[in-house]
């Protein structure tokens, strides 16, 4: 079963890095990219992704605020915050917002764990 993954980060390199890891795990899944929260919303309304990976430090609305919004308005989506900012407060706030926290640089293992959880949740939600 394939899923749609939306990757949001203002750095193209960072997006490439995430996609690379995603390709290694699930080459058949759909990848959608956005450079900031506004673009991301556009893509969400058009493409309806199942999973969203957000950068924390973005211009405009920051990743954490956006993550909280997404969890409220599109609660079926799995959201993870991807950031090199590993401060304990950031991690706590991610969790409080209902998003997973993945440290940058993203390793395949960390991504795999998150995706497996996400898929389980999505399967559960559908049935």
């Amino acid at each position: 079963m394939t899923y749609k993954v939306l990757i949001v980060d203002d750095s193209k390199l960072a997006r490439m890095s995430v996609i690379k890891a995603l390709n290694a795990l699930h080459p058949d899944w759909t990848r959608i990219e956005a450079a900031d929260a506004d673009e991301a919303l556009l893509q969400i309304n058009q493409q309806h992704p199942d999973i969203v990976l957000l950068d924390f430090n973005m211009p405009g609305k920051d990743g954490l605020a956006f993550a909280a919004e997404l969890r409220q308005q599109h609660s079926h989506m799995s959201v993870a915050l991807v950031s090199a900012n590993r401060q304990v407060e950031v991690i706590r706030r991610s969790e409080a917002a209902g998003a997973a926290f993945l440290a940058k640089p993203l390793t395949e293992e960390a991504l795999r764990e998150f995706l497996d959880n996400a898929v389980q949740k999505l399967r559960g939600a559908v049935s």
Partner: protein
Amino acid sequence: MRPPASVILSEMELDALTELVNLGVSNAAHSLRELVREEILLSVPKVTVVSRDEAIKNLGERDVKRLVAVHQDFDGDIAGRALLIFPETKSLELVRAIVGSDLSLDDIIELEQEALAETGNIILNACLATMANNLGRTLKISLPEVLHGGGPEFFYVKPPPFVDDNVLFSYINFSVRQRNITGYIAMLLDLPSLATLKNLLAALIERTSSHTTSTVPPNGH
């Protein structure tokens, strides 16, 4: 001496560099938090490569005549110096942010050199180390030194080999204990270093966009 056009970074390379600085600064935030024991908000809105004259002008334009900088040299495949620059008036502000506001003015003044040195040390180390790591290189990084002065003093450095004309400039916004401090990270690289940097960035981009799961070549290759 103007650099040859080929050395100036492409848009993708600049994107990659920005991301590296971002990663470095995020790492720095994490370790600064250990020092300060409160959440640090650090962000890097912009990274540019400008000529030395333009760099000095940028600093002057912000109406800051007196600056304080923490300076560290680095050596290896890329050599140069890195500076973390703050407006001098903000330095006491920064010290209070690090050590708290309960100390008297005298104590703050006393601790200024050390606080700046350690903060600068953490930030610059994290940035340089992250960059080096991701580019698959190692650098030897010196201990920090605190300097006071103005743009020209920082950027015109004798003796050679720092005869370059380019400065990698990034603004960094820093907020801790409700104090907003804006400073800059500036890195001066000599020309060969800039060319090397460009190549390394290209290689990084290549590695990241490739579909193989090849890993980054080990440090020290």
